[in-house]
């Protein structure tokens, strides 16, 4: 089974990495949600932004859109335990 994943070594360098998915929403490439508290500015109050972890469908679209940080790998199908 083919899966899309972040290339090795990048998660340590960029532990809160985000990008845009097909629907224009911010998604995390780290495998978990990224939550960031943004301080207020003279024109906007403090806010909390949450980038949900990208789904496999998100990752495939981002990969096929040319993101160089992702790769397609073969993942063995789990076998049924008798």
């Amino acid at each position, binding site marked *: 089974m083919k899966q899309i994943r972040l290339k090795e070594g*990048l998660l340590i*360098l*960029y532990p*809160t*990495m*985000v*990008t*845009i998915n097909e629907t*224009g*929403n*911010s998604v995390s*490439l780290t495998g978990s949600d*990224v939550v*960031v508290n*943004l301080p207020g500015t*003279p024109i906007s109050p403090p*806010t909390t*932004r949450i*980038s949900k972890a990208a789904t496999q469908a998100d990752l495939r679209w*981002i990969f096929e*859109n*040319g*993101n*160089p*940080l992702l790769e397609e790998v073969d993942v063995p199908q789990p076998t049924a335990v008798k």
Partner: protein
Amino acid sequence: MPCAITAINSNAACAQDQGGIVRSFFCNLTDITAVSNTAGVVTGLTMVSTGLLKLMQYSKDDTAYMNQTGARENERLSVTATAFFKFRGVTAAYIKNANEIGECCSVVAIHIFANGARIIQGIELDATAVGGFVGTRKVTQVTPSILSDTGANQSRLEYMVEGSSNTFAPSTTLTDAALIAL
């Protein structure tokens, strides 16, 4: 980029093609981890975190621009990109903003042109780089100025954004909504 000569015809439509830029998004070069592109057009950005692109809404007085001037230096093409815009008035917040952005070592600016084009100043596409891009050859930096001017004019904050590269700044299909979501 390999040599190629392709025909261009700008007389097919009578679009007004208003000049100038109307707003820009800014971040540090180090805030971007990867650039996705299709045939040289940027279709996606990956950032080190969310909320790092900052929207600059400057004066709409037909003075804001982003020009890229090509020059030959010993047969090598060099492109100097210069953007200029201003914010009316002088406030403590403007002074803080000017001091902080003036300290940035290398910035990236996504300029929205009046005719709808979207150009990314501060990067060059490079398929051999890990993230698919590099910063401009001569770093892109902001030089702020704060002017009282005279009673006949406006006091203002001005930003000049300048850097040099080997290629013209790439365009992008990323919408304002996507850039704000990033």
